[in-house]
């Protein structure tokens, strides 16, 4: 077994919020966006991250990419910790790790041609190339994502959403990074176009041996691309498991509710979604115990006092006190 290419440990992110402040001069409260997330990724591994809106998925991967702040925690590349305050470290990170975003149109500079957009990373990361070589690489990469050479000198607004996302992928991959972070890369696309982009990403991942983090709220999409799936809730990790196991046999009460609620495109399946009652806690005032307690149908008394860590319990990584009970029994 090789060593992890990327290790993330105990990442925590908070944001100051002024909302609900008593007086203008009182110190801002802090919103807890990511409440302790860590995992190791092996080279070529695909990790899917799912969870409801606002659970901290984007904040987490922005922090890993150095595009957003974090309060504590650490990230290592090939076993070497990244110091986000050091330019040299950031450069190393950027060279090895690229990102694609949800809104394909907005993430491309509207005043640059497709050719310029895709060539940009080469200018930074491969200064040894001359302009003819660069052009050649751009043509090859665009061809790989299905954009014809004759369209190279056009601007982003002349392309559809799906095409813009392909262009974003071409830009992210042209300098051959080893790690690609995808934040909801297909959420804004139609089903028929979404499938094109997922297939393309899967092919490129296999071809280039990419290590991938794929964030989405659609479990079907995540299931299709991931080796392992991490389920987040209120900034914390609820469950981490191989994709097939997680879907076939969810262990955390939240994962169970989530899976039961995924609509099945088959009218003969009479679905019995588990309806969660109770409200989400406020991210500025998280409960002391389990993050899921206010909506958990299986809650026990201890859940209000102890916050379960994501521990290896009976071969599965689940953050739930019931697992401890089962272990003891």
């Amino acid at each position: 077994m090789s060593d992890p290419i990327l290790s993330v440990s105990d990442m925590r992110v908070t944001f100051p919020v002024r909302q609900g402040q008593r007086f203008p001069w009182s110190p801002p409260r802090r919103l807890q966006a990511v409440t302790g997330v860590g995992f190791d990724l092996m080279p070529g591994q695909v990790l899917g991250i799912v969870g409801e809106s606002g659970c901290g998925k984007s904040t987490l991967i922005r922090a890993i990419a150095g595009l957003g702040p974090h309060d504590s925690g650490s990230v290592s590349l090939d076993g070497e910790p990244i110091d986000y305050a050091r330019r040299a470290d950031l450069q190393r990170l950027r060279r090895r790790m690229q990102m694609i975003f949800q809104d394909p149109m907005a993430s491309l500079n509207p005043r640059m041609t497709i050719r310029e957009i895709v060539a940009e990373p080469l200018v930074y990361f491969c200064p040894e190339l001359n302009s003819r070589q660069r052009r050649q690489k751009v043509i090859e990469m665009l061809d790989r994502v299905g954009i014809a050479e004759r369209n190279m000198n056009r601007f982003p607004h002349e392309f559809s959403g799906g095409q813009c996302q392909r262009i974003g992928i071409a830009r992210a991959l042209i300098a051959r990074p080893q790690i690609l972070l995808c934040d909801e890369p297909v959420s804004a696309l139609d089903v028929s176009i979404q499938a094109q982009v997922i297939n393309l990403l899967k092919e490129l991942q296999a071809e280039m041996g990419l290590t991938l983090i794929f964030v989405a709220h659609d479990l079907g999409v995540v299931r299709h691309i991931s080796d392992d799936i991490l389920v987040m809730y209120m900034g914390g990790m609820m469950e981490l498991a191989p994709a097939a196991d997680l879907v076939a046999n969810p262990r955390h009460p939240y994962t169970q509710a989530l899976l039961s609620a995924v609509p099945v495109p088959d009218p003969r399946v009479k679905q019995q979604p588990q309806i969660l009652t109770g409200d989400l806690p406020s991210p500025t005032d998280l409960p002391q115990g389990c993050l899921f307690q206010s909506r958990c149908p299986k809650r026990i008394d201890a859940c209000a006092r102890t916050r379960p860590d994501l521990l290896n319990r009976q071969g599965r990584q689940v953050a739930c006190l019931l697992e401890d009970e089962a272990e003891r029994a």
Partner: protein
Amino acid sequence: MTLLSVQNLRIRFRTGDGLVHAVNDVSFDMAEGQKLALVGESGSGKSQIALAIMGLLAKNAEIDGQIRFDERDLLTLPAAQMNALRAAQIALIFQDPMSSLNPYMTIERQLGEVVELHEGASRAEARKRALEVMDAVRIPDARNRLRAYPHEFSGGMRQRIVIAMALICRPRLILADEPTTALDVTVQAQIMALLDEIQRDMGTSVLLITHDLGVVAGFCDDTMVLYGGRVMEAAPTPAIFDAPGHPYTRGLLRAVPRITEGDVTLSAIPGSPPNQTAAPRACPFAPRCVDAIPACHDGLPEFREGRACIRPVEELT
């Protein structure tokens, strides 16, 4: 009994770049108590059909065809009557709950105002009705939360309040335009279960607009599939899923990632969505259709026996 009948509806928008042909010759009927799904990808004309029924199309729209509701022609109805009808009998639920709620008004006022205005109810009566619908949509502790403002509720609760607002006058038709798209699946399940229950209790007709085939499967009796502003296929929901008769429907169903299947390659539909700046003269799906033959590019396929495709079902891949 037919409640709503849409015949040869055509909607075009005048824009700087010429006419946009958003809805092209769409016809369908809805019976009392029917749940019909309108499925299609972005830009296929779903929302414009709902807005046309409500008489809320943008200023630059040109509309023709017929929309009859309970034997009245909505396109020629005087504004005052249309307003009354809109408030009392047809309700529209938008995707984004905040766009239908006034952030500066308490929930009680927003709900109550509708009944006071349209039924001449007293304050006390309006308050009672507001409480009733809040309970119906399961807002916990409704009595104490009548005085709250929209921002004090979560996204899922706000959408339930919007549904409450749609229900308060006991409409006969609910147009739900992507009512759960902005919500998480756990909340979506809650809202759909709620809509289903209300529909059964009150016998309301529901036109559900969505791009999510999973939601359709669990909720609607019948399904209509749109592409490029035209109806491609219309059939009872089980038939659409078991024996889709149109190449586009088939492609769409194959492209949905299913949670039960992991490592299969999704079958994508190649190509891009249609350009709607010209009136369609041929099958709008032809440039992307795996079953297309030269004749498909020559004329508009007629909508017959539930589908608009010139090739017989047996010949499709």
